[in-house]
Each structure stands twice: as C-alpha cells, then as structure tokens.
C-alpha cells in the first residue's frame, strides 16, 4: 500500500463508532499483531508513541519508586543520562570492548539495558538478573536481537526497520511492576493517540524489512568486513570503534576535522554522520567514543542499508581515503 492510500484508509478515529472507524480499528489491530509477532511481545503489551523518545521516561521512570536505584551505563543514550539526573542512580563504565558487567546488582535495582549501541553497533552480551525492573533500549537493535525473558519495559524506534520517523513502540510486560509516570486519569499508557497512518506504514515496513533482512544479512556482514579491512589496511592513523551489529561502523581519523570530512563526503554524494565535537550541535565529542577510549576527532558513522551495494562501498572507500589525504595535507 502506498503512503497516500494509507492516509485515505486510516484517517478515521479507530475508537469511534461507525463503519469508517471500524475499518480503521481493524487496521490498528492488524498492525498491533504484526508488531507483536516481530518484536516477541503480546499484542496487548504494545503501545504506539508519536514521540519515540518519550518511551525512555515511560519505560524507566515507570519502574522506579523511592526504594529503587537506577543502574545505567556510560554508553547509554543522552535521554537515559537525563533520566539518571531525576532518580537515585549509579553509572556503570564499559570496558574497552564496550561490554558492561552487570554483576553486583541489588534486588531493588532497576536497570537500563541497551541491546545495541546506535553509534557503534556494540551488542551487549550480559543480561542483568534478579532485579526489580529491567528497561530494554531496543531503539538501535530493532528486530535483530530478542528481548531477554525478564524484561519489564521496552522501546523500539520505527526507523530501525526503515519505517516512518516519529513512531515509537513501547511495551510494558504484563508481569512488570510499572506505574505510569505521566499525569493520567485513565489506564491509557500513551498520552495521545499516535498517528494511525504512521502505525500502518510502520507495520508494512517491518514486514518487508524482516523478509529482506533474512536474505541480505550475509551481504551486510561481508560489506562490514570489507570496510573494516580497507580502513585498517589503507588509511593510516585510523581508529575503529568496537562493533557488533553488522550494519553499523564508527571510524575515527587522527589529524582530521570531522566537519570538513563530513561536508566533503556529502558534496561527493555520500551522506555520513559524525560523533566529533565540531559536527555536534552542543560542540561536545560523542560520550560513547570517549567512554570507549576511541578517538573522537575525525569521526564518521556509517550505516550499511539493505540497498547498499559492494560497488558503491568500493567507490566510497576510495573517495574516503582521498578525502582524508587531502584534509591532512
């Protein structure tokens, strides 16, 4: 279904009576079932958020009362850092590999577990256990990594499966000790109705993304290896951040201004992101790279998409190498 058709079919309010609303309610239920199947949760545990990052507050603050300490790590997202300021919190430091040790937790602790780091692709292998609550940040892992059995709340972002932006999926486990941290009068979890057309578009996207991922995972892994090998062998004074998820690579280059590098690469047809201070709106270097001890200057972050080809990557790497040589001279 093309997007304009979705907007035509999904404009009525699914909570109202009437034929149009009934068919909209059917669309919503179908979408809910689709997400439940791909994300490994029950359909009645799913909530849609028009503001995806609101899910950090819902998922974390909803598990915490006065007796709980909040455990997070120094490579968690800034949204999690902000929440650590309003709760009694303890920050864990990652090892150089990006792994977090969740030993020594107390039964009353509430932890945040980032399944995959969105800057570097680092995948956490340890799982916090025997604690009061566990929030899962699945905003970079999407459907790639299964929820641990003892999850309490979880958050996904529709853009991870190439769905529309402005669409988060937030789940509260039936067994979780969770209270809505937002002002509320009824049992609704999300404050506003999320856009039904975006929900339907995202459900279509996750279906096709999961099907493609099965066929393309091996290609993406091979491209990841090609990029890492090329940078290590051909670009001196480079520093690759530890990775994990095959579609993400973060690489830094000594004596290079990242803002100039990103601008030149964009001019040459390659849009890439950066974690360097000079390309950040707050002029601060990436806290993830700093926590890992990886160089923060001259940093670029690459995402390998389903449509990315080997030829495209080969051309890009040559241009990357040339551009770095130019900027260093």
């Amino acid at each position, binding site marked *: 279904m093309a997007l304009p058709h979705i907007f035509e079919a999904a404009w009525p309010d699914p909570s109202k009576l009437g034929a149009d609303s009934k068919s909209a309610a059917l669309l919503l239920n179908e979408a809910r079932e689709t997400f439940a199947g791909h994300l490994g949760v029950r359909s009645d545990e799913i909530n849609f958020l028009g503001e995806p990052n609101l899910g950090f507050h819902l998922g974390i603050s909803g598990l915490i009362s006065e007796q709980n300490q909040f455990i997070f790590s120094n490579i968690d997202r800034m949204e999690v850092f902000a929440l650590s300021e309003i709760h009694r919190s303890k920050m864990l430091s990652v090892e150089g590999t990006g792994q977090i040790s969740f030993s020594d937790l107390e039964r009353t602790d509430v932890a945040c577990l980032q399944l995959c780091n969105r800057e570097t692709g680092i995948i956490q292998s340890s799982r916090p256990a025997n604690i009061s609550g566990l929030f899962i940040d699945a905003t970079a892992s999407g459907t790639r990594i299964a929820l641990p059995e003892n999850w309490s709340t979880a958050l996904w972002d529709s853009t991870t499966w190439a769905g529309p932006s402005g669409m988060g999926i937030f789940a509260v486990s039936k067994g979780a000790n969770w209270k809505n941290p937002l002002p509320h009068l009824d049992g609704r979890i999300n404050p506003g109705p999320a856009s039904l057309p975006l929900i339907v578009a995202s459900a279509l996207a996750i279906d096709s993304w999961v099907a493609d991922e099965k066929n393309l995972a091996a290609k993406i892994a091979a491209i990841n290896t090609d990029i890492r090998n090329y940078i290590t062998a051909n670009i001196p*004074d480079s*520093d690759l951040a530890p990775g994990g998820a095959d579609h993400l690579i973060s690489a*830094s280059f*000594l*004596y*290079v*201004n990242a803002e100039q590098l990103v601008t030149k690469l964009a001019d040459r047809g390659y849009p890439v992101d950066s974690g*360097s*201070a*000079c390309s950040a709106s707050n*002029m*601060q*270097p990436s806290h993830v*790279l*700093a926590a890992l*001890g*990886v*160089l*923060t*200057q*001259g940093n670029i972050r690459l995402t390998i998409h389903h449509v990315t080809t080997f030829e495209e990557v080969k051309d890009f790497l040559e241009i990357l190498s040339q551009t770095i040589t130019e900027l260093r001279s």
Partner: protein
Amino acid sequence: MILDCLGKRCPLPIIELAKVLTDKPIGFKVTLLSDDPASAPDLIAWARMTSNSTETGEPDTFYIVKLAN
C-alpha cells in the same frame, strides 16, 4: 616547553602537538594547554595510537612525553 592551544578547537591542538614533536628527540616533554572538550579523550587515544605518553594535570593542562618517532 609549553604549547598554548587555549581557545583552539579539535583537531587543532593535537595537530599542533604532532607538528611540535616531529623533530624532537625521544623523551622530549611538552605541557599542552587546551580547553577544547575533545582534548582529554583524544590525547589518550592519540597516545595509544602513536605510542606516546600523556597525563592529565590541572584543568586544561596535559603533560606529554614523546616516546616514539
């Protein structure tokens, strides 16, 4: 020697440091002054990548020893 890079933004302090060290002997010491927020993490990464040594002193002050050419 003292290398004053106060007010200079990343990657300039580390580029200037590398330039200064180019023709200096092993064991040469530099005190780098830098208030750029990237300098603290990047000097550690630079020292690891280039086999040199760095230590953080008072705010915005870093002690560097050349250990490799």
